[in-house]
C-alpha cells in the first residue's frame, strides 16, 4: 500500500471515528487506520456506556466543558446515526446525612459546568424513583440529562457514516513509525505507507507511543483497569436510572445501571496497571464490584450474572484532563489523548474541537455539499411490532430465520451486519453489531451458525473465521486432519 491523504486519523475508537465523521462534512481526503480487526474494539467497547450529565468533571478542566457540550449533541447524533440511546437520568445516592454537603458541592460543580435541571432529592421521593435502593439511602443528586448508550454500536455507526461519506477506514492497519517531512508526514504501517498533510493521534491507550513516533515524549498514558459484571435481561428492569454512590477521590464508585439492551451492568473498580493489554478479570475484583453494587442495590447477588469483562481507561495522570491540541513541536500533528471518562460523553464535542483546531491549521475548511448525515437504518427484528415483523419476513425470508434465540437475532440482520460499510468480519464483531451471542447462552447455540454465515458471506474457510480478529481462530483444522497426516507419513 502506498497512499496519500489530506488527513490521517490513527485510531478507530469512538474518538477517532467521531473525528472522522465530523471532518467528513468538509472537502478533505481522509483515511482512518485501526490496528485491530474492528473499530471500537479497544477502550471504546468496554466501559459503562454512560453519557454523563457532566456534574463530576471539574469545571476548570477541558473535560468539564466538553462533557456537557457533548451530552447536548447526542440527541441530534442519535437522530442521524440511529444507535441505541436513552436519557434515563442518573442518581448519586448518599447513605449518610454527612454526605449531603458532598452532594451539594457536586451540584454546585455541575451548575458551573452548565448541567441543566440538577436537583437534590430526599426521603420518600427517592424510593419513588428507585424502589429497591438500599433502605439506608437518605438523599440523591438527580441529573435527568444523563443517558445510556451502546458504546460499540455508537462507534460502528460513526465509522459507517464516515465511510459512506468518503472516509477510507483501514482495519488491521497499525502505525509502526512516522517520518516528519517539511509539509507532510509519512506514516509507515504493517500494510505499507500513507502520506498525509495532517495526522491526528487518537490512538487511545497507545496515544503516547504514537506521539513518540514524531518525537513527542511528554505524554504518558497509564491504563486504569475496571471490571464489570453483566446481568441477564430479566434483571435489567429492576432499576430505571444509572445509580452512583457518593464518589471518593479516585473513582465515581461502583455504578449500577440499566443498559440500552435491557441488561443490568455493575462496575467498574479502578486499578492502575502497567500492561496495556491486560484485560483480564480477577476473582477479587469481581467480588469487590459485586459487594460495591450490593451497597446500592442490596437485592443483587451472583444469581443472574451472565458475563464479566474488563475495560481499560487511558489516563493522563499529569493533569487528569484530556489532551486535545495541535502539537507545538510538530506542525500538522494533533494529539487527542488521555480520553478517559467522560470521553464517551464528550466524543462529539471533542470532534468539534478537533475540527476547529484543524481549520486553524489549514486556514479554513470547505464544506462537503454531498455529506449525508443519516445512517441507513439497522433492522432490529426484536424491536419491531408483530405486523412489521410479518411484513419484513414476507419481503425478505432471511428475517424469518432466527439465529440467536436469546437475543432474537435473525439471519437477515447478521448478513446485513457483515455487508454494511466497515462491516463485521469476526464472531464478536457480529455480536457487537447485532447482539447475536450476547445473551444468556453466550453464543453456545448460535456460535456455530454465525461461523457458517461468516464463511458464506466473506467467502473464507471455516478455519479462517476468528472470534475477534488476529490469531483468535475458532476452528483449527478439519477433524482427524492431524491423525490422517500421521497415517500417510
Amino acid at each position, binding site marked *: 500500500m502506498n497512499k496519500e491523504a489530506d488527513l490521517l486519523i490513527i485510531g478507530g475508537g469512538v474518538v477517532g471515528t467521531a473525528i472522522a465523521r465530523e471532518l467528513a462534512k468538509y472537502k478533505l481526503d481522509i483515511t482512518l487506520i485501526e490496528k485491530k480487526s474492528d473499530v471500537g474494539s479497544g477502550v471504546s467497547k468496554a466501559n459503562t456506556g454512560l453519557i454523563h450529565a457532566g456534574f463530576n468533571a471539574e469545571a476548570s478542566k477541558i473535560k468539564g466543558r466538553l462533557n456537557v457540550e457533548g451530552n447536548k449533541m447526542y440527541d441530534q447524533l442519535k437522530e442521524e446515526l440511529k444507535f441505541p440511546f436513552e436519557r434515563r437520568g442518573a442518581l448519586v445516592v448518599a447513605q449518610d446525612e454527612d454526605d449531603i454537603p458532598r452532594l451539594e458541592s457536586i451540584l454546585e460543580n455541575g451548575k458551573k459546568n452548565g448541567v441543566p435541571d440538577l436537583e437534590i432529592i430526599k426521603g420518600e421521593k427517592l424510593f419513588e424513583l428507585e424502589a429497591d435502593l438500599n433502605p439506608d439511602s437518605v438523599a440523591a443528586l438527580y441529573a435527568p440529562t444523563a443517558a445510556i448508550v451502546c458504546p460499540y454500536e455508537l462507534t460502528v455507526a460513526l465509522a459507517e457514516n464516515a465511510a459512506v461519506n468518503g472516509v477510507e477506514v483501514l482495519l488491521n492497519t497499525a502505525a509502526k513509525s512516522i517520518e516528519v517531512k517539511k509539509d507532510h508526514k509519512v506514516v509507515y504501517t504493517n500494510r505499507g505507507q500513507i502520506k498525509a498533510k495532517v495526522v491526528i493521534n487518537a490512538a487511545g491507550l497507545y496515544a503516547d507511543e504514537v506521539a513518540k513516533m514524531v518525537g513527542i515524549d511528554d505524554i504518558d498514558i497509564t491504563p486504569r483497569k475496571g471490571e464489570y459484571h453483566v446481568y441477564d435481561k430479566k434483571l435489567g428492569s429492576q432499576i430505571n436510572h444509572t445509580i452512583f454512590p457518593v464518589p471518593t477521590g479516585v473513582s465515581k464508585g461502583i455504578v449500577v445501571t440499566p443498559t440500552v439492551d435491557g441488561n443490568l451492568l455493575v462496575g467498574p473498580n479502578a486499578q492502575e496497571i502497567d500492561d496495556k493489554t491486560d484485560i483480564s*478479570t480477577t476473582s477479587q475484583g469481581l467480588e469487590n464490584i459485586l459487594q460495591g453494587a450490593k451497597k446500592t442495590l442490596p437485592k443483587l447477588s451472583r444469581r443472574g450474572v451472565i458475563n464479566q469483562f474488563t475495560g481499560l481507561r487511558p489516563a493522563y495522570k499529569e493533569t487528569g484532563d484530556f489532551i486535545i491540541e495541535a502539537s507545538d513541536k510538530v506542525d500538522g500533528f494533533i494529539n487527542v489523548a488521555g480520553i478517559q471518562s467522560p470521553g464517551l460523553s464528550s466524543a462529539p464535542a471533542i470532534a468539534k474541537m478537533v475540527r476547529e483546531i484543524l481549520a486553524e491549521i489549514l486556514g479554513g475548511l470547505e464544506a462537503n455539499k454531498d455529506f449525508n448525515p443519516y445512517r441507513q437504518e439497522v433492522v432490529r427484528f426484536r424491536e419491531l411490532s408483530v405486523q412489521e415483523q410479518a411484513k419484513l*419476513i414476507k419481503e425478505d425470508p432471511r428475517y*424469518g430465520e432466527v439465529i440467536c434465540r436469546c437475543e432474537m437475532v435473525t439471519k437477515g440482520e447478521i448478513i446485513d451486519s457483515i455487508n454494511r460499510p466497515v462491516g463485521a468480519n469476526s464472531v464478536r464483531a457480529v455480536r457487537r453489531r447485532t447482539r447475536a451471542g450476547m445473551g444468556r447462552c453466550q453464543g*453456545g447455540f448460535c456460535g*456455530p451458525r454465525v461461523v457458517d454465515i461468516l464463511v458464506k458471506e466473506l467467502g473464507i474457510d471455516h478455519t479462517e473465521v476468528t*472470534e475477534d480478529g488476529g490469531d483468535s481462530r475458532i476452528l*483449527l483444522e478439519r477433524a482427524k486432519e492431524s491423525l490422517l497426516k500421521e497415517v500417510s507419513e
Partner: protein
Amino acid sequence: MNRQSYDLVVVGGGPAGLAAAQEAYDQGVEEVLIIERDFELGGILQQCIHNGFGLHHFKEELTGPEYAQRFIESVGSRGIDVKLNTMVLEVSPDKKIYAINSEEGMLEIEAGAIILAMGCRERTRGAIAIPGSRPAGVITAGAAQRYINMEGYLPGKKVVILGSGDIGLIMARRMHLEGAEVEAVLELMPFSGGLTRNIVQCLDDFDIPLRLSQTVTEIHGQERLEAITVSQVDENLKPIAGTEYKIECDTLLLSVGLIPENEISDEAGIRLNPRTGGPIVNEGRETNIEGVFACGNVLHVHDLVDYVTEESKIAGKTASEYLNNKIEKREDEIELIAGDNLSYIVPQKITTKVKGRKRVDLYMRGKRPMKNAKVIILDGDKEIFTKKERFIKPAEMISLALPEKVIDKVTSKKVEVKIVGEVE
C-alpha cells in the same frame, strides 16, 4: 398473520417432543403439531454420535442419531405435522403460540393443549465467572461437539475439560479420537458428575486423568487461549491459595451444568421450581396452567434419554386425557417434598385421579454418593413405601413407581421423600 389451530402443539422436536407427540397421537389425539427451530428433528441427539442410547427403552445399544431416527420415522408414519426452522416466540396463558419461519412468516397457532419440550442449554463461563482474559478457545462442550460431529472441524488441539458431567466425559474421548491431546478433566466436586460407564469408557480407556476437587481459577492468553491456572478447592468448594498450577492448552471445554430452557414458560406465567429450573408439575407433568405440560430436559435435566422418553410418554398420555376430559381432580392435592439427601423430586405434586391408573412415576436425584441406601416415602411419620438402592449417585437419576393403592391411603397433604443409607 397466519392463523392455524391444532389439538396439541409440542414445542421442541428433540427426544422429549417426539415421544410426547407420538404417545398423544397413539392415545387418540388427531391434530398434532411439532414445532422445531432446527433444520431437522432429533434435537441434541443428532450431534451425540456415540453409542449407549436406548438400553432401557429399546433394549439395544444405539447412537444418538439412531435413537432419534426411530422416533422421527414413527412420527412421520403417523401423520403428525412438523414445522422445521420455526422459532416459537411466545406461548400465551390462553394457549396461543406465536412463532415465525421464513416460509409462513408470522404464525398464530391456537392449541387445545401444549407440551413444552424445549430442552436445556449449557452453563457458560460467564455464569460461573471464571476470572482472566477473554481469548478464543473457551467454549462449552456441547458447542465443541457440534463443531466436530456436525461440521467436521476441530476447535482445539490441546484440551482441558472443566466438569466431569457426561458431556464433558464424552467430549474428552471425542477430542482424543479426532486428534487432539486431552490434558485432563477437572471436577470441582469430590466426585464425578458423570455415569460410571462413561468414566471407564471415555477416560480410563484412554488414560485421560480425572482430577477431583479442582477448578480453573484463571484464563490466560490474548487472542487464543494459551494456558489455564488450576487450583485445588476446599470442602466449601473455594480455591485453596498455594495449590495453583498452570496447564498449557489452546482449548478449555466447559461442561459445568445444564439449565432447562424456560424463558418461554416463564413469560407464559408458568411457575418454576428453583431446584430443577423447570416447571412445577403434577404427576401427569401438567404445569400450573391447565392443559400445558412439560417433559424432558426442560422439566429437569436427565442423564439418560431413555428416561426422557418414558417421561414424555406420560406427558403425551396426560395431554390426550386432558383433551378428552378424562382427568378428575383429587379432593386434596398431595405435595411431594424432597427430604434428606434428595436434591429434587419430580413431580412436585399429585393432584388428579385417572381411571385405571396403576402407578405414578417419580423421578428424583440424590444429593451425595451413598451406598446400601433406601428411598423412603413418609405420610406424616409413617413409612408408606420404601425402595432399596445399592448405590446413590448424584449423576444417576432414581426412578420409582409409586402404586396407586399407596397413594389412595395417604392422609397428609404433604408427603416427604428421603434417602437413608451410608454416606460414601
